[in-house]
Structures are given as structure tokens and as C-alpha cells.
């Protein structure tokens, strides 16, 4: 068992904490989403849906709590998608040569960067959860301490697997394209459908069937749904929609995300083994 990925992880983290501007913006950004977009949207949604009768006996969840899970998913999506860019610069400025010429297996390079992205993603996740409380986002409402801890572990795992998946995807693109502009446009293209064809911000029940089917296979939907399972409970209603999450749903979410991450890992390995210096 070798642990060289720790060296890669160490380097990424040194640089993450070195640049305070990067560090701070990455932390402030999710808060801004929540504060501006979240509050604006939740007010209008709540107004629009206030007339829809809720089923009696089902706990009603404010839109901002529902959307909070989506904001986490969105934030983690963007940071992991752009997280691979570091590889492109490393390749461009031939920094990668040093590592490629060392005995470090190539899997470790991508794994090290992946784990650093997970760390950053978790920072952001918990900032959103923490800050969300201040603006009325009610996660873990009525949970006991144990239930809260289990929920946090669950969310951590989901976010970690999801981040790895998208980091591997982003890494494979980064190692393949030559210039930052190309990388940027590919990422924008990829992120758009993933973000909008999902239940991150709104329920998918109203989608046309075609989009609905697509969105069910979207890792973004799996993550947002999974976070809701852990944070909001298995039975709640929001905007007049009644949600029931079962154990099967959460198992499917985990399996789906693990599958996605593994596919992306093999894609990354395939691209990585082609890298010539």
C-alpha cells in the first residue's frame, strides 16, 4: 500500500490556504447564493404556493430549506467541476513533469487532487448549513443529537462521492484540452444541463417526461435528494408537493453516485495514461 496521494493532497491544500482571496471567495460564494438567490426565490415561491393546500399531518418545509440542499449540490458541483483545472495548468507549465517522472502512480495524482477537492467541498457544505440557519434554512429540525450526527455523516459521504465523480470528470477534461478557454467553455456546457435538469432548485414532478427521466439519472438529483433525505426527513411537503423518501431511494442515490464516480475514475485513468510529456 502506498500513500503518495498524500503528497499531492498536501500540495493542493498548501496552495488553497495560501491564497486568502481564493479561500475567502470560495467560502463567501455559497453564502451569497443562499442570501440573495435563496431568499428571493423562497419568498416568491412561498407566495405562489401559499394557496396550495398541504396534506394534513405532513410536516411542511419552507422552500429555503428545500433549496438549501440544492444550493449545496450546486456549489459542490461547480467547485469540483472547476477543481480539475489545476491539472491543466500543471500540465501547461510542465509542473506535472516532476510528478510524472517520480514513482507516484498516476492514480494517486488524480486521487490526491480528488481528496483535496472533497475537503474544500465539505468546508463549503458546512458553511452553507451553518449560515443557512441564520436565514431560516431548517436542516435537522426536531432531530436528536444522534440523528443529527448520522445525518451529517450521510451528507458528508454523499458530498464526497459526488465531488470525486465530478473532479475525475473535470480532471479528464483538463488533462485533454490545451488551453484555459477551451476548458472554460466545456465546463460551462457540461454544467448547464447537469444543474438545470435536476431537482436542485425545483421539484422535477412538473418536468416533461423526457427531462424527468433524464433528471432521475442525474448525479445532481441523486445528491440533492440524498441531502434532503438526511436533512429534512423522509416525509415532508414543500410547495404543495408531498415527498416520501424511502431507504431504497437513499440506497439508489449512494449506488448511483458510486457508479458515477467509478465511471469517471476510469475515464480519468484512461486520459491520464495517455499523457505524454
Amino acid at each position, binding site marked *: 500500500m*502506498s*500513500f*503518495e496521494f*498524500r*503528497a*499531492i493532497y*498536501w*500540495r493542493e491544500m*498548501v*496552495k488553497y490556504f*495560501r*491564497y486568502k482571496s481564493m479561500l475567502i471567495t470560495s467560502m463567501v460564494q455559497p453564502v451569497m447564493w443562499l442570501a440573495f438567490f435563496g431568499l428571493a426565490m423562497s419568498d416568491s415561491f412561498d407566495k405562489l404556493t401559499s394557496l396550495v393546500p398541504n396534506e394534513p399531518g405532513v410536516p411542511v418545509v419552507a422552500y429555503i430549506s428545500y433549496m438549501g440542499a440544492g444550493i449545496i449540490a450546486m456549489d459542490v458541483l461547480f467547485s469540483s467541476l472547476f477543481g480539475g483545472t489545476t491539472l491543466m495548468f500543471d500540465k501547461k*507549465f*510542465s*509542473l506535472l*513533469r*516532476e*510528478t*510524472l*517522472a*517520480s*514513482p*507516484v502512480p498516476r492514480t494517486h495524482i488524480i486521487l490526491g487532487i480528488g481528496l483535496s477537492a472533497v475537503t474544500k467541498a465539505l468546508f463549503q457544505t458546512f458553511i452553507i448549513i451553518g449560515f443557512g440557519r441564520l436565514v431560516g434554512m431548517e436542516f435537522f429540525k426536531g432531530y436528536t443529537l444522534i440523528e443529527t450526527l448520522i445525518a451529517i455523516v450521510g451528507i458528508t459521504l454523499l458530498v464526497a462521492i459526488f465531488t470525486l465523480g465530478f473532479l475525475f470528470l473535470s480532471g479528464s477534461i483538463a488533462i485533454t484540452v490545451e488551453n484555459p478557454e477551451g476548458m472554460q467553455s466545456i465546463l460551462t456546457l457540461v454544467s448547464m444541463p447537469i444543474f438545470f435538469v435536476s431537482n436542485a432548485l425545483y421539484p422535477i414532478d412538473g418536468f416533461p417526461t423526457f427531462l424527468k427521466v433524464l433528471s432521475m439519472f442525474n448525479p445532481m438529483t441523486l445528491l440533492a435528494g440524498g441531502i434532503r433525505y438526511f436533512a429534512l426527513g423522509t416525509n415532508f411537503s414543500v410547495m404543495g408537493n408531498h415527498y416520501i423518501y424511502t431507504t431504497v431511494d437513499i440506497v439508489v442515490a449512494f449506488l448511483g453516485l458510486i457508479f458515477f464516480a467509478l465511471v469517471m475514475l476510469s475515464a480519468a485513468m484512461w486520459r491520464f495514461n495517455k499523457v*505524454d*510529456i
Partner: protein
Amino acid sequence: MTGNVIEVNNLEHSYGSIKAVDNISFTVKQGEIFSFLGPNGAGKSTVINILTTLRKLQKGEARVNGYDVAKEPNSVRRSIGIVFQMLCLDHEMTVSENLEYHGRIYSMKKKERSKRIEELLKLTDLESKKDTLGKDLSGGMKRRLELARGLMTKPAVLFLDEPTIGFDIQTRMRMWEYLREIKREGTTIFLTTHYMEEADQLSDRISIIDHGKIIVTGTSNELKNKLGKDLIYLETSDNKAAAEILRSLVSVKNVTEDTKSLRIMIGEDVTHVLPQIMDKIRREGIEIIIVNIKKPSMDDVFVHYTGHGLREGNENGNGNGNEKQQGIETAVVSE
């Protein structure tokens, strides 16, 4: 087998239909500085990349520190240090972090890492810069940091690909000092260069490489002595005729015509030969315009063996009407 840190046999490498390395064999002995001298595109970097396992070996055999480059790449990697042709430092990390990272990717223990970093900062005079970011270093300092990094794991052999390319002469000379110091500490050094002076100043042995082939190998002195004791540069009113006359003289080893002058290789003491030569030419009615005597330099050696100047790179010959093979002696002067 013992005493050789690098052994290469019949190495060949092609990019598509272009043969970059053409049946090369050589050995590098323990503790020496060995140079590949040749123009850009001669195949130097390809050889270095194969030996450092960065490029797959296509044909032939190569061993570094006793390990087969093709079969035991990881053992090779653990035995070597590399300074790449292009600067490749992390500009966003400090000097000591750059070294720290290197130690980490080679799984060095923490204590060992910090001890080695201290030693190397001292060796390369970077102690005062240890917390400076890579991007704030001067070109020469960056190179020294790369040198330190290459030595981090105490490699059996240090590879340097054009280590002083683009540097001014002071920086280069300083770099040479560091390399000599490293050699004194027992590290074998393999370097490629297209600076004659660099090969001359540093190397225990030099291989001149051109068009993917080793033309000749030897110590700097051996290579120069091959050209005779002295060189005479002669400019006359009729170089062609003068060359004919000179070729008939016993004391003249070789005559080459450059654009304006004749280059005459002399086997004996030039002080006796020169009056004879001048006499002979004058008697034929040819006027002597300029005479210059010098000891053979690496430049002369290079031109002699490859048939063209270093700067001309890939162009074969130099179009001076002087392609009369000046003995591309594939002979190895010494092994």
C-alpha cells in the same frame, strides 16, 4: 558491469518515420560527469527521456544504476534525479515547499526530508530564500532550486537536460561550480548541452551527438588532441590553391576550407611548421593576408567531427563547397 551507472546498447527511437536516435551505445562511469554535446534536434533530449523512463524504450537496451529502464522503471526512477530542460517549479510554493513536495512524492521520511532540505539549501546558497515563493526567484536561483530538488533523494545519477540554456555567462559559470561540487560529493552526472564551453569545462567525458548518432566519445583533451597540437587559420588571396599545396605537406594533418579562411591542423610544433607553410605558399605566388594560431577548442572538435558548425543544427554540411568528408571518423577515441 561494475562501475557503470548507465549502460546503453543499440538504442533506437523514432517519431513516426523520423529516426531521432539511431543505434546509440555508451556507458557512464560511477562518479563522472558525462556530456552529450550536439545541436538542437540531435536526439539528446530523447535519450535523456528514455533513460529517465519518461519515454518508452522502443528498441535497444538501457540500464540505469543496474536497473533495466524498460522492465524496472520504478527502480530507475528511485535512483535518479532530473533537472528538466524547461524550468518547472511550482511558482505558488516557497523554495522549501518545493523541496518538501519532492521529498514527499518520493516517500521520504519527515526527519530525512527536513535534514536533506537544510543540506541542499546550504549547497545551493538558497538558505536565505527558503520562504520565498518560486515566482519571486531570479532565473539562476530557480535553476539552483531545481538542482537542489534533483538531489533531494540522493540519486545515484543526476540527469540535466540543457541545464544552463538561456543564462548569461556569470550565471552559467556559477552553475558549473555547483555541478563540480555535486560531483565532488560523489554523484554521477549526465548532461546534455549545446554549449561547447559547458561540455569542455565540466565533463570528464564527452560524446558528440548529431543526427541521432554518437560521432565520437572521449575526454575533452583526447578530442582536442585528435585535431593535432595546434590549429592555424590562414587567409590567402587564393584559398583553394593554397589548400592544395598544404595538403601535400607531411606536417599538415588536415586542411579545411571555410568561407574566408583555411583551417589547418598541425601534428607538430607549430613554431617550426608555420615558417615552412608561409614560405611554400608565397613561393607559389599566393598572397597571405591573415595568419592566426590557436589551440583546438571544442568548437573546432565539433566542426571537425560533424562537418558543420553547431549553430547550423540540422542542415547537413555548410554549403561552402567543402563537403569533402573531413573524416567523419566514427572511431571512438577512448572507451
